C-alpha cells in the first residue's frame, strides 16, 4: 500500500506526520521523501546511508561532423532546447525535457545522448525502516523526473509512505499518482484552508481517497472542520499546538521520541487508513 502525505500549503507538518507514522508501525515500512527540492525527513529519521546514486536525464549533444544543418531538431523541440544558429547547433541542456524528439527526427543520426545531472538519490535505513530520498541539484529547475526516480524504489507488498512537496502542480502530482491514499496535513487557518481546498481538488482529479490530519489544531478557527464535514473528508488525527512538540521538532526530534504515547495514535491512524482503503477497494 502507498500512502502519500501532502498538504497544498508548506510548513503544515507533512514531514512530522510522515516520519512519526513511519517509525510507529511494527510492519515492514519504507519512507520515500519526494520533496526533492527541500527534503527534510532524513533530519528526523537520521538514517544510515548505504547507497548514493547520481541521477541524470538524457539530453542531446550534436556531432557537427554529421550534422547537415537541416533544422529539423529545432523544429520538433517544443521547449526551445535545441536551436540551429548559423552553421552550428546549440543545445540548451537546462531547458531540455528529454523527450528524445530531436534524436528521433535527425536524418543524419547526428544527435547523441549525454546527461544532465538532476541530483542524487540516497538510500539507507534505521531500525528496519527503509529510507530513500532525492536531493535536487541546486540550480536544477525540474523536480518531477527526480521524484519519479525516487518512486522507482517503491517495494510492492510493504507499506510505502511518501513525503510529498507542497503545492498543487506537477511535483505534487508526481508524488501522489498511483497512491492508494492521500493523507492531507493542514492547519486550521485561512491560509491552511485555502491551500487545503486546492490540494483536495488535485487529489480528486487523481481519484484517490483522502483524509485529514489537522496540525496545531487549537490555533486559528474551526473553518477547516466545517469544510471537512461539508466535503465528507474524514479528520483522522488532530495534533494540538504544544510548545514541547514544536521545540522537539526544531531540534530534529519526532513527536514519538519525546511523547512515546503518540506511537499508539499513529498506529491507529494507519489502521483507519487501511480500513478506508480496504472498503474503497471492496465496496
Amino acid at each position, binding site marked *: 500500500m502507498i500512502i502519500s502525505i501532502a498538504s*497544498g*500549503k*508548506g*510548513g*503544515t507538518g507533512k*514531514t512530522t506526520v510522515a516520519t512519526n507514522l513511519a517509525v510507529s508501525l511494527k510492519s515492514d515500512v519504507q519512507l520515500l521523501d519526494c520533496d526533492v*527540492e*527541500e527534503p*527534510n525527513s532524513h*533530519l*528526523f529519521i537520521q538514517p544510515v546511508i548505504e547507497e548514493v546514486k547520481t541521477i541524470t536525464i538524457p539530453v542531446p549533444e550534436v556531432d557537427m561532423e554529421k550534422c547537415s544543418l537541416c533544422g529539423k531538431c529545432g523544429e*520538433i523541440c*517544443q*521547449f526551445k532546447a535545441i536551436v540551429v544558429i548559423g552553421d552550428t547547433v546549440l543545445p540548451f541542456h537546462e531547458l531540455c*525535457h*528529454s*523527450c*528524445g*524528439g530531436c534524436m*528521433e*527526427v535527425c536524418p543524419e543520426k547526428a544527435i547523441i545522448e549525454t546527461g544532465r545531472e538532476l541530483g542524487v538519490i540516497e538510500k539507507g535505513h534505521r531500525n528496519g525502516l527503509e529510507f530513500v530520498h532525492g536531493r*535536487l541539484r*541546486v*540550480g*536544477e*529547475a*525540474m*523536480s518531477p523526473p527526480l521524484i519519479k526516480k525516487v518512486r522507482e524504489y517503491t517495494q510492492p507488498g510493504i507499506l510505502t509512505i511518501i513525503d510529498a*512537496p*507542497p*503545492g*498543487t*502542480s*506537477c*511535483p*505534487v*502530482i508526481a508524488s501522489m*499518482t498511483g497512491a492508494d491514499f492521500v493523507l492531507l496535513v493542514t492547519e486550521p*487557518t*485561512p*491560509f491552511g484552508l*485555502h*491551500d487545503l481546498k*486546492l490540494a483536495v*481538488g*488535485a487529489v480528486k*482529479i*487523481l481519484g484517490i481517497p483522502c483524509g485529514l490530519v489537522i496540525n496545531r489544531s487549537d*490555533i*486559528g*478557527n474551526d473553518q477547516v472542520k466545517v469544510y471537512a464535514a461539508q466535503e465528507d473528508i474524514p479528520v483522522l488525527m488532530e495534533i494540538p499546538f504544544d510548545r514541547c512538540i*514544536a*521545540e522537539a*521538532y*526544531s*531540534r*530534529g526530534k519526532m513527536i514519538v521520541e519525546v511523547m512515546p504515547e503518540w506511537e499508539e495514535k499513529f498506529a491507529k491512524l494507519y489502521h483507519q487508513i487501511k480500513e478506508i482503503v480496504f472498503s474503497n477497494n471492496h465496496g
Partner: protein
Amino acid sequence: MKEIVIISGKGGTGKTSIIAAFASLAENKVLCDADVDAADLHLITKPEIKEQYDFESGHTAIINQDKCSECDLCRDLCKWNAISEDFVVNAIECEGCGVCCYFCPEKAIDFPLNTCGEWYLSETRFGPMAHARLHLAEENSGKLVALIRQQGRKLAEERHINLLLTDGPPGIGCPVIASLGGATAVLIVSEPTVSGRHDMERVVKLAAFFKIPAMVCVNKFDLNLDQGKAIETFAREKNIGVIGRVPFDPAFTRAMVQGKTIVEFDSQSEGCKAVKNIWKNLKQRLEI
C-alpha cells in the same frame, strides 16, 4: 525600479505574513504574488480584480480515434507512458513534447494549446497587485511566475512606482528559479528548526548560483535560540545580511484569521515591532 522577492526554501515559515506587513509599511509599491501554485497573499489584501486574463502555455496531445490506425508508434515514442493501450492520452502525464503528433503517420494527433491558469491585475487597500492562479495539477508554473512578475513591473512603471514586493514560492525548483531573475535582492524568511536551517542553506546556494544578493531574517526566533543563531552565523559566513529576528507571536495567526496584516491588527505586538525593524533595515540596505 527595485524588486524584493521573499523566499524561504521551506514552506510555512511566514513569507506571506511578513510581506503582508511590508504591504502595510511601504508607501508606494506594487504587490506581486509569485506563489502561483498555492497563492495566499490575496486572502489578506482582498484584491478587487480589474483585469483578468487566461494563462496559455504548453500543449497536450489528443488522439483522434477516427483517424488512428493503432500502429503503436506513438506509444513507442512517448517517454512518459502517457498513451494507454486503447490510444487515449492521459493529459496529466502528457509532457507536451509533441513527438507523437510529429511522427503519427495518420496525422491523427491534435496538439492544442493549454489554458493552465489565470492572472489578474487588481487594486487593493495597499496599492496595485498582480497575482495569478495556476490550475490544479498543471505544469509551466515557472512561466506563469515570470509573467506575473513582468506584469507587476509593468504596473509599477505605468504608475511611476519604483518598488515591487514579490511573494515567492517555497522550494528551489522551477517556480523559485523563475522568481529570482532580475530581482534586486531576495529576503529569505527562515525558522529556527533543523528543517528551516537545512532548507535555508539550499536556498542561499540557489541565490548565489543566480548571483542575486540575499538577506535573511529568522521568524519564531525564540523557539530555538541555538538554531536561530546557527542560521545567522551561516548567513554571515556567506556574506548575507542578517536583518532581524521575529519572535514567536500568536498575533500573526490572529491577524490572518481576521484577514489583516499584523500592522493593521496590532501595531503594538512584539511581532509587529520586529517586522517594522526588519522593514527599516531593508529600506536602508536597498536605499528604498
